[in-house]
């Protein structure tokens, strides 16, 4: 008998999946009423969450994507960082004027800045929502020292339940809620344990 | 609560009070009489069975449950000067006897009318009258009373009516004192360390009196405080409410 057979035999008869699904769904009925306060204005709540100590993200707001390169240059200059960054193979990047910045051919392994487009943002927690795709590699978002994330205001949702994409399940779906951090040594908080030490959100619209 | 003013209640005095500090039992009688109760002290009482229950000896604990249910069920109410003992009767007797068709309902009935004394007095709207105690006191919430019976505000309301008594908050008032019944004799070193922290917190309040609703906790905390050379004196809350805090504190010759 395989381990699978033995375990399933031990766990007993399997009930009708449709019945189970209905029971599972019923267990969430009324759940919205129990969520911690979500705040009124989506943008205000989102920005307030970005400012939480455990999130520690900075932000800027621009009217349109055309202003993005300028906003990035400005951010890097203000931080005293090199005017260089890695850009994802996203169509939106192509149409913009990056002449003020050095475009890195390869994603830096440690130092350096990386740009990414978040598909959505969650106001409840200040989370940025990503999925993998040919236009959106995953690794650069964790390798960079500085993570610069572009988010359209229209992509803001209130609750985590609204974060998942509809349709087919992506290879990886992930939420970034602030800078990498650890309290593993004597409980002292340190930023940039392995992931990015800096997170800058550029809100568009 | 819909108990008539002149109710006939049974006092379940508890084995610790009986053997170690009878004053608590007499204070209970005094307060209950003042509250208009006719009090009976069932002769056959010994112990609620908690030591057996917490040691895993379920058979003995269940036997004690049956005996005590039979002894107590004829009274309108059972009042207990201990949160852990009241909790044993109220919460654990029904669970111990749930599968016994002859006893399950009887256990439920007794559980429903068993009360920790401070909760009982507060629910009846009784307040000590003409009881004065010029002192600064701090209060420890014993775990069973707090978490099994919801005893929190009641003792503070009752003590609020004692003239001259200044109640100051205890940091970590809901943190276990380390008594834990059989725990303090089975794992004395750990119990001792926990009690040390509790005593330090009590001393830090600047209060001269330590009050609580469970004698085991009080003996543990007072014993630790005295060993540390502290001046803090400990009483069971019911002693204060009955105007008997002018007598010997815990550990002083009775």
């Amino acid at each position, binding site marked *: 008998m*395989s*381990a699978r057979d033995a*375990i399933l035999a*031990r*766990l007993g008869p399997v009930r009708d999946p449709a019945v*189970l699904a209905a029971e599972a769904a019923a*267990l*969430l009925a009324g*759940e919205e009423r*129990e969520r*911690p306060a979500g705040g009124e204005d989506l943008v205000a709540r989102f920005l307030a969450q970005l400012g939480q100590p*455990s999130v520690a993200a900075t932000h800027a707001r621009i009217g349109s994507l055309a202003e993005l390169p300028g906003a990035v240059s400005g951010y890097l200059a203000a931080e005293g960082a090199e005017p260089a960054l890695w850009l994802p193979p996203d169509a939106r990047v192509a149409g913009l004027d990056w002449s003020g910045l050095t475009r890195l051919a390869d994603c830096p*392994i440690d130092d350096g800045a990386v740009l990414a487009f978040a598909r959505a943002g969650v106001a409840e927690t200040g989370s940025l929502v990503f999925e993998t*795709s*040919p236009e959106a590699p995953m*690794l650069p978002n*964790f390798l960079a020292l500085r993570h610069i994330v572009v988010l359209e205001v229209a992509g803001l949702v209130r609750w*985590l*339940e609204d974060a998942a994409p509809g349709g087919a*399940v992506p290879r990886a779906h*992930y939420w*970034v*809620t602030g800078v*990498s951090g*650890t309290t*593993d040594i004597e409980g002292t908080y*340190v930023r*940039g*344990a392995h992931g*990015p030490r800096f997170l800058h959100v550029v809100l568009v619209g | 609560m819909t108990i008539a003013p002149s109710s006939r209640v049974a006092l379940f005095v508890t084995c610790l*009070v*009986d*053997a170690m500090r*009878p004053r608590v039992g007499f204070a209970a009688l005094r307060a209950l009489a003042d509250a208009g109760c006719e009090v009976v002290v069932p*002769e*056959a009482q*010994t112990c609620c069975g908690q030591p057996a229950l*917490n040691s*895993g000896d379920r058979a003995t604990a269940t036997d004690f449950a049956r*005996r005590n249910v039979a002894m107590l069920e004829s009274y309108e109410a059972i009042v207990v000067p201990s949160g852990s003992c009241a909790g044993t009767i109220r919460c654990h007797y029904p669970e111990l006897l749930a599968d016994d068709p002859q006893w399950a309902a009887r256990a439920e009935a007794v559980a429903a009318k068993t009360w920790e004394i401070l909760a009982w007095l507060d629910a009846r709207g009784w307040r000590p009258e003409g009881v004065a105690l010029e002192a600064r006191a701090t209060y420890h919430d014993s*775990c*069973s009373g707090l*978490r099994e019976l919801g005893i929190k505000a009641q003792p503070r309301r009752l003590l609020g009516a004692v003239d001259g008594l200044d109640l100051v908050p205890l940091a970590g008032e809901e*943190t*276990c004192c380390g008594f834990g019944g059989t725990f303090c*004799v*089975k794992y*004395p*070193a*750990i119990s001792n*360390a*926990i*009690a*040390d922290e509790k005593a330090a917190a009590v001393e830090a309040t600047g209060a001269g009196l330590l009050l609580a609703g469970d004698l085991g906790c009080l003996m543990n905390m*007072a*014993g*630790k405080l005295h*060993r540390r050379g502290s001046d803090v004196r400990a009483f069971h809350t019911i002693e204060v409410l009955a105007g008997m805090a002018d007598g010997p504190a*815990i*550990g002083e010759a009775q």
Partner: protein
Amino acid sequence: MSRAFDARVDAALADRQLKIAVERTAGTAEAKRGVAIGAWPSFGAARERAAAIKDHVIANLGAYLVQFEAAATASGATVHWAQTADEACSIVVEICRKAGAKSVARSKSMLGEEIGLPHALEAAGIGRVETDLAEHIIQLAGERPSHIIWPAMHKTREQVSELFHARHREPHVEESIVAMAASARRQLRGEMLGADVGISGANFLIADSGQVCTVTNEGNAELSLVPPRVHIVTAGIEKLVPSMDHAVHLLRLLARSATGAALTQYTTFYAGPKRAGDHDGPEEMHIVLVDNGRSAMRDDGLAEMLRCIRCGACMNHCVVFRQIGGHAYGGTYPGPMGSVLTPALDGLAANRDLPNACTMNGKCQEVCPVAIPLPTLLRGWREKSWREGLEPVTLRSGLGLWAWAARRPWLYRAGVRWAIRAMRLAGRGWIAKLPFAGGWTGGRDFPAPAAESFMDRYRKGER
């Protein structure tokens, strides 16, 4: 009390440094959780719902496992099943061998610890890189985790500094925690990116989509699981939830209960290996579903324990844990949840102290985000221990004698009179030394009883 437990407890209580570390970690976590939960009025209702969700899954575990397996397989992952810890380790080692792996990168997994995976990899000659900072520290120190969220909480900065100076290629120069963390970042980066296999646990397994959810705050998980050719997940079968929305409900409770944050920094849902067009991701994804006693726990009265979402709140609030720290428990899991699990995983006879070394104060149950009745489960172990005759003879006979007397009121009264007289021989007020009660009077004074018991005085007419 077993000699081994005794010795560990004594060592822990004597360790001043440990106490400082425990207060700094668990004490801070208690305070932060308090703020987060204090700001959540519906916490009580939310945790009742979470308990109901987990109970539903556990009651229908077979169905959800089958559903998960189908969905995960459809996404391209390979699902394996392991009844025992050894089986699980063998499967992992075999996958590593087939992949020609010389080194594996591990992100933190208590389940991996439970099944003995570090040892199995070592025995198979496979290099292991622990990428979670705390796990890295204890790997260097050759120790086991002492907390499920902060495995290296027992280490001081000096101890960490010494380890890093000895073992890092480019250790920190400045003696600061920031510099030490940077040293670890440097040391582990290349190893993470160069590993052949990445091994993780799972916080949740999403049944309807086959997704594996990991929750971390360092970013080491993603860096160890995305670059390698092979990603192996080892997960306890109880980690299932029906859907993403159910997971979200539990995630809200998890982070707040563990650290007081609304959410941890990285919440990632993986569904299978790299797809056509992806720039990164593993070529193979394996999920090892591990039973290791869980189905037995479910049938043996421990179903509620399987609700556990590994937040650590119970231990952070436990007065016993706060004095003795995690290693004293002697098993993979410490604190209240460890005291329930360890007898199930490693046997009751060797671990009967754990459910007994508890004051039954109930704080653990009060803070548990899935309302596990921990004191009840601990009492259950005490009852089993009693039935199996594992309790010490002195306790059994002492309790037996007391119970025999207490059933006979007249005899009991006589016994009480005798005991009072005996105690009063040692003193009339505070007693500093009471024979046969050295456990008490070793550390505290004992208040002498009055000359007569309440029942005797009452019978004589005193009111």
